[in-house]
C-alpha cells in the first residue's frame, strides 16, 4: 500500500500545485453556493423558505460535481501520456493498479478539500436554526461516495486518451449518464422498467444519504461502480502492452 500513498501524496501535491485545482474548486463553491441560496434559475430563495435545512446543497452539489470532477481527473493520465511521463512512471517499482489507486486517492484529496470548504453552508444553517445534524452527516458521506465514483469514471476516461479536453468531455458525459440519464434511458426502452433496474441511477442511490440514512446497498453500489471503473482504468493502462 505504501507506493499507493506515495503516489497519492504526489498526485495531490501536483493537483494543488496547478491552478486548475483552485479554479475548479472556486467554481464548485460558487456554483454550489448560488444553487444553494437561489435554486435552479433563481426560483428558490433559501431565506424565503424559512427552513433550517441543508437539503438544497445535497440536491444540487452532485450536478456540479459531475461537471467539476472530470476537470480534475482529465489530466491525471491523459497529461502523463501526452508528456510521455507515463513511461517514466511505469518504470518505477509500482503496478498499474497502484498507479490508478494512487491517482484516484490524490483526486479524492481534492474532493475532500472541496467538500470541506462547503461546510460553511451547514455552519450558517446551524447558526440560524436547528437542522438535523445527522442528515447533514449522511448527506456528506453520500457526496463523498458519489464524488469518488465520479472521480473513478473521470479517471477511466483519462486513461483512454492523450487529449485532456476529450478526457474531460467523455468523463463528464459518463458522470452525467450515471447521475441523470439511466432513468430516462430505461423509460425510453422499457415501458415499465423493473424497480431493480431503476436502482442503477446514482440519483436513486443518493436519496437515502440525503435523508440521513447510510444503507449498505447504496454504499455497495457506489463502491461497485468505483471498483469497476478502477479495474477498467487499470486494464486500459495495461493495454499499452497489447498495442
Amino acid at each position, binding site marked *: 500500500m505504501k507506493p499507493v500513498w506515495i503516489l497519492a501524496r504526489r498526485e495531490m501535491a501536483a493537483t*494543488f500545485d496547478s*491552478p486548475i*485545482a*483552485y479554479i475548479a*474548486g*472556486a467554481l464548485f*463553491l*460558487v456554483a454550489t*453556493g*448560488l444553487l*444553494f*441560496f437561489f435554486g435552479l434559475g433563481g426560483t428558490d430563495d*433559501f*431565506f*424565503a423558505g*424559512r*427552513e*433550517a*435545512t441543508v437539503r438544497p446543497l445535497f440536491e444540487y452539489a452532485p450536478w456540479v460535481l459531475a461537471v467539476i470532477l472530470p476537470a480534475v481527473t482529465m489530466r491525471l493520465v491523459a497529461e502523463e501520456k501526452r508528456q510521455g511521463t507515463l513511461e517514466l512512471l511505469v518504470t518505477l517499482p509500482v503496478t498499474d493498479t497502484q498507479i490508478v489507486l494512487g491517482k484516484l486517492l490524490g483526486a479524492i484529496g481534492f474532493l475532500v478539500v472541496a467538500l470541506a*470548504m*462547503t461546510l*460553511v*453552508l451547514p455552519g*450558517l444553517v446551524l447558526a*440560524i*436554526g*436547528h437542522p*438535523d*445534524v*445527522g*442528515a447533514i*452527516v*449522511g448527506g456528506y458521506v453520500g457526496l463523498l461516495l458519489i464524488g469518488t465514483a465520479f472521480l473513478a469514471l473521470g479517471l477511466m476516461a483519462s486513461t483512454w486518451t492523450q487529449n485532456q479536453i476529450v478526457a474531460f468531455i467523455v468523463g463528464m458525459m459518463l458522470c452525467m449518464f450515471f447521475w441523470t440519464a439511466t432513468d430516462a434511458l430505461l423509460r425510453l426502452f422499457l415501458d*415499465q422498467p423493473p*424497480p*431493480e433496474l431503476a*436502482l442503477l441511477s446514482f440519483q*436513486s442511490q443518493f*436519496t*437515502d444519504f440525503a*435523508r*440521513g*440514512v*447510510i*444503507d*449498505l*446497498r447504496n454504499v*455497495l*453500489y457506489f463502491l*461497485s461502480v468505483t*471498483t*469497476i471503473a478502477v*479495474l*477498467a482504468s487499470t*486494464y486500459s493502462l*495495461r*493495454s499499452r*502492452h*497489447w*498495442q
Partner: protein
Amino acid sequence: MAETTKKTNGRTDALVLLGAAVGVAILVNALAVQSAIRLDLTDQQVHTLSDASVAAAKALEDVTVTVYISKKLPETLPTPQGKMPLKGIDRAFRDKLAEYARAAGGKLKLVFAEDGSPSVGTIEEQGEAAKLETFSSTDAQVTGNTLKFQKYVLGATFHYKTVSEVMPKALNPGFYEFEMTQILLRLKEKYEQSQLMKEPLAQGKAVFDGVKACNEAVQKAAKVEEKKDDDAGLSLKGGNDPNQKRVAALQAATADLDKACAPVAGLVAGDGAKLKGKNPFGDHLVDNAAEFDKAWQELKRAASGQAPAEGQLPPALMVQQLTLLLDQLFREVDRAHQTLADSPGRKSIGFLCGHDEFCPFAENSPLVDPQVAAMLGQSNPMMKQIVQAATQISQAVDETNGKIGDNLFTKRGYSIRRIGPDEAVPDDVAALIVYAPRKPLGEYARYQLDQTLLAGKPVVVLAQSWQVALLNMQAPEDLGNEMRMDWSTMLPTASNLDEVLKVYGVELSKDPILDSKHVETVRVTGLVNKGGLQFQTQQDFPYALIPVANDFDRGHALTRSLASLSLPYTTSVEPSKELLANKAFDVSRVVRSSASSLRKPGPVPVLPQTLKKLVLDTPPNGPHTLALAVQGPFKSAFTGKEIPKRPAPEDSKDPQKAAQKPTDAEYELAKRAFKAEGKGKLLVIASNLGIEGLSRADVLAGFDLSKFQQFSPDSIKAFTQWQANFQNWQIRIGQISHLLNENLQFLSNVLDWASAHEALVAIRSKGDTRRPMDDLEPEKQKELRLGALIGSPLLLILLGLVRWRVRLRRNRSLQA
C-alpha cells in the same frame, strides 16, 4: 507470432477479468437488495423502527398485509402546495413493510397484489375494491371521446383474524412508521373488543347485508342503456325514453325485487331494533336503513304505475330520482356499517362545546324553525330573503364544522363526541378537550371538567385569550359603501379559563407572548394596482405574535421527538408556587418560548411592521412556559360548595334534547357520585394552535328573529356583518394556513397522549418536521449570503496564492 498471441491473450484476459468483476458486482448488489444493514444518523432515528413499533409487530400472530403498488408511479404529484416528489416512494414503502416483517419474526406476511385476470382487475381496481384511495397525476389518456387521468394506488390492507384495517394512501414516507404501528395496535384492540361486541356487530352486518342485496337488485334492474343518438320522434312516443324504460324494467323485475328487498323492513324491525341504543354508530346505521326502506316502499309504489298524488312528480321521474336516492342511502348505510365495524376498541374523546370554542360538529337543529321562516316570509318578502341568507350562512358554518371534524379527527381514526354546556360527560368518553373557549365556562361545565379530571381521565385545555384580526373585512357604516379590508385589531376574549385553572394550581396569564427572533410568518393577502388593474398578492411577514418554540421537556412523551412548534397568539402558563412545592405532583413545562421572547400586557399593535418595531424596542424577558402538564392528586374546586344542577337544554327545538330535562333524581345521583379528590392528568396549552373555532353564535352575532319583524336598514347591515364574520374566519385561518399542518400533527399527538397511546406520540413526531430558521433582517440575510458565497472561494484562492508564493520562494532558494 508469439508477440501477437501474447497481446491477444492479454486483451482477452483483461476483458474476461473485467466481465467477471462486473458479474461479481451485480451479484453482490443483487444479494445486498435483501440486506437490512443501515445506519440511521437522523436526530430522532426517523428512519428506524422504534421499540414500540417492534413490540407492536411482534404482538400479533399471523398478520397478512396485502400491498397494492401501481406498476409505474408518477415522479411527482400536483398538490395545492406545489409538486410532491414521488420518486423512490414505492421503494421506501416496500422497505418499511419489509422492516416490520423482519421485526415480527415471521408473524407478519407480505402479499403483493399483481395485475390479474379481467375478473380480478388491475392493481388499481383491486386497491379500490379493498377501500384504498386512488390518486391521479397529470398523466392522462384519451379513451374514445373522453380524457381520463391515469389512476394510481399505493397502500395496503392489514388483516388479523376476523378484523382488518386499511392504509388507504401511503404518500408520506415520514409517517409510514406512525401509520403502520397505529394500524397494528388498532388491530389488536379491535379484535379483542370485537369479541365482546359480537352480537351488535352481527346485527349491524345483517342489516347492512339486507340493504346491500336490495340496492344491488334495484340498481341492476334499473340500469338502462341511454341511446345517445336518440330519435326525437321515438322519444315522443315514449319508446326510447330511459325513464319509461326504467319503469318498465322495474315492473318486469317486481318478483325478484320483492324477494331481495322485502327482508329489509323485517331486518330493521328485528336486528335493527335490537341494535338500537347499544352503540351510537349502530343507531346511525339503523336510522339510515329505515330511511332506505322508506325510499324502497316509495319506489315500489311509483314503479307500480299508481297515479301520483297532487304535487308529486310523474312516476317515471319519481322512479329515476328514487333509484338515485336509494343508491345514496345505501352509501350512507355502507359508511355507517364501516364505522360500526371499526368501532370496537375505539376510544371517544369529548369536545366541550357551547362557549364559542373550537367545536368540530355540525349543529343538530336548524337556525330558524321552517314554519316560523315561512310565516315571516308571508308577512315580509324582504325578511324572507334575510332569514334565508342567514340560514345559508348557518348551513355553511355547520358544513365547515362537520367537514373539519370528519377530516381532522374521524378520518384519522379518532372517535369524537360533542359535550354541550348542559350535558354530563358520558362514561365512555376517555378524555375531555376544552378547545379555546372565547366565552366563560358556566358552573355546570366547570363541574364537568372538575369531575372528569378527578376521575383520572386526561383533561386538555387550550386557551385563546385574544382575538387577533389582521386586515380583516369590516361591514361599512354607510350601506352605499363597499366592504373594507383593513380591520386590524386585538381584542380580549371573554374566556374565564384563568379563573377555572387557578384552583388546580395553574396560572394562565392573559399577556401575549411576542418574540423578536424565533417567529413564524403571517400570510397577508392584499390588492396591488398595476396599470389600472387590480391584482391580488400574497406576502409573508415575520410575525412577532407567532413565536416558534424549540425548548421542550424531552422527558415528556408529547415533546420527546418534536423539532419545533409555532404557537399563534399565545399567552403563557405557569405552575403556582404551591403546586411546585407539592411533591405529590409531577409538573412539566412541556413547551417554553425562547430567551428572546417577551411577555407584554395586551393589546399590542397587530400590523407586522409596527409590531416588529415594538418588539425590537422592548428588552426580552423570556423564556416563558407555553404548555404545562400536571399530574397528581387534584382536589375538587367544588368541595364545600353546592354542586351545580344540570341546566335545562337551551336547544328546545331539538326534540331529543327537549326530552333531556334535568330531574331531581338525576341531581341526587350526581351528588352521590361527587368526587372530592382524585389523581388526574391536566395539560394546558396557552394557544389555540391557530385552529380558531367557528360557531354559529359568533358568525351570526346579534341574530334575533324578534328584531327582524320589520324591515330596517339595520337588518341589511347585520346581514353584511354576518357575511364579513364568516369570511374573516376564513381569512384568519388562511393567514396561518402554512403552519397548520405541523400544529395539527401536534394536536393529534395531544389526542393520542390523552387517549393513552403514548407510544404513538413519539413515533408521529418522527415524521418530517419543519425546522423554521430564526427571523433575519434582509440586510443580515444579504451579509450571510455574501459571506458564504464569496468567503470559501476567496479562502481557497488565497490558499492557492500562499502555496504559490511558498513554492516560488523555495524554488528561488534552491536556485540560489
